């Protein structure tokens, strides 16, 4: 929902409303869903979505065996302020997923994914902080 009152905070960002809104299962690999602003990661045979606003950083690394690693770090409480830190403050009793890291067989796919996540994240964060500013 984009047209709620100014009381709506970015903490209400959700990726999907229904299971059927998720992209059809393809290969088991990290995907970026631009339309729903989500990053999907394969965990035990299921694509698990995370809204891009929960992502703090993403980075990749390659070793000498042509293995490629990608690390996604999520926002958790107690880290430097981010526009979505409201989540962390509001959910003090929760346990947070802090980080996932994957090894990939395809370095090109990984660098693509890293770029896509970074761009999407930047756009969403910019939009949300603009919205927050307008609301005050």
């Amino acid at each position, binding site marked *: 929902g984009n047209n709620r009152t100014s009381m709506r905070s970015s903490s209400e*960002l*959700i*990726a*999907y*409303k*229904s*299971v*059927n*809104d*998720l*992209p*059809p*299962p393809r*290969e*088991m*690999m*990290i995907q970026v869903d631009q339309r729903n602003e*989500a990053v999907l*990661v*394969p*965990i*035990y*045979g*299921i*694509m*698990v*979505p*995370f*809204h891009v606003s*929960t992502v703090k950083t993403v980075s990749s690394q390659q070793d000498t065996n042509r293995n490629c*690693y*990608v*690390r996604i770090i*999520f*926002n*958790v*409480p*107690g880290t430097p302020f981010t526009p979505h830190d409201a*989540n*962390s403050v509001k*959910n*003090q*009793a*929760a*346990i*947070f*997923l*802090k*980080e*996932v*890291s*994957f*090894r*990939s*067989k*395809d370095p090109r*796919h*990984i660098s693509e994914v890293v770029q896509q996540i970074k761009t999407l994240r930047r756009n969403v964060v910019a939009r949300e902080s603009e919205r927050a500013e307008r609301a005050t």
Partner: protein
Amino acid sequence: MADGHLFNNISLGGRGGSNPGQLRFHSGGILWKKQGGGKAVEVDKSDIVGLTWMKVPRTNQLGVRIKDGLFYKFTGFRDQDVASLSTFFQTTCGITPEEKQLSISGKNWGEVDLNGNMLTFLVGSKQAFEVSLADVAQTQLQGKNDVMLEFHVDDTTGANEKDSLMEISFHIPNSNTQFVGDENRP
């Protein structure tokens, strides 16, 4: 075994992604065979302690928990299969499958539930994901609040996924009361 149900396109999910195969339910239990041979999973009905259904994108997933703590996940059931199989399980095993929901909100905060050797991350009481602690090579406490799980690196399992999970870490704030002592630490 005329009373059985045969499904041709059922994947067994696990550490290495999912493998397609054939699943047969018969009066004695469950038999899954990997497509093209190789791995097979056989579960005697007397070993089944719990069954779950979960709606996943485009299909349904059956969870089979057995006595020794293992938890098999089979994916690829149509909506109409769910109803007929539930009836089948009730009559043959006397077990009513429980319905689980998949979290799709995209949040990274929730609860951790430990059951047998499965660690489940729940968001708003819906399941975001599940990992098997049997696949964890090492756990590490990082600082006071972070727990890191490192998974086995195994190149021989024939993982058919492009990206494989290597590490996962959870942040447990001081304000969390679920894991106060470290005896419960995953």
